[in-house]
């Protein structure tokens, strides 16, 4: 495993819209790109047992998550003709309405970018050791489970 190639996908706190804009803007010099596909996960104010989710507190097993993400990246680049791929996941407390996951794939053609993006999102949900604790408005909590 080449440590230099392992990108840190985690950031503390929510992913700002300006961060996403900067990321999009940076691709304007890559004129072989024809299509970008972006997925954003946003914390939902779900109602459970008459209580409303106010935030999700994310934790991870970082060393393992980064290795896993590196594997996912390699498998996606082996399968799809992507120009580039970026993944960012929040850690810590993310309030309802804030963005906690940002997946960004770019390719020459739209189908490739969209299929790759969808697959990355699914793999992240299933394979990354990340845990979300849903915190209700009254400070009680429950552990999130992915479907």
């Amino acid at each position, binding site marked *: 495993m080449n440590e230099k190639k392992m990108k840190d996908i985690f950031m503390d706190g929510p992913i700002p819209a300006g961060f996403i804009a900067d990321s999009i803007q940076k691709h304007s010099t890559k004129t072989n790109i024809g299509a970008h596909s972006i997925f954003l*996960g946003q914390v939902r104010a779900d109602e459970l047992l008459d209580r409303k989710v106010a935030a999700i507190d*994310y*934790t*991870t*097993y970082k*060393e*393992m998550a980064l*290795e896993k993400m590196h594997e996912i990246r390699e498998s996606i680049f082996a399968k799809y003709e992507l120009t580039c791929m970026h993944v960012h*996941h929040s850690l810590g407390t993310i309030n309802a309405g804030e963005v*906690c*996951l940002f997946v960004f794939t770019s390719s020459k053609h739209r189908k490739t970018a969209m299929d790759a993006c969808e697959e990355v*999102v699914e793999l*992240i*949900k*299933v*394979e*990354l*050791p*990340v*845990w*979300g*604790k849903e915190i209700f408005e009254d400070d009680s909590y429950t*552990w*999130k*489970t*992915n479907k």
Partner: protein
Amino acid sequence: MPFGQIAEITGADAFQLEAADTDQVQQALYKRFPALEKRAYAIAVNKVIVKDNTMLSSGSVVALLPPFSGG
């Protein structure tokens, strides 16, 4: 190393154990934390998830991973 809801039961970040394999780790943990026995979790040895009982060597890092819920 316990994570998520498992960490709530074991009440600690990481701790040392003497064990020859992952089955021994589980037995030792169930004695200390009986509530753990009913919980669903996966075991990772040195950052790789293992399904069957796995031999450990000195310095092996064993992690208890409850169901993932990232994204």
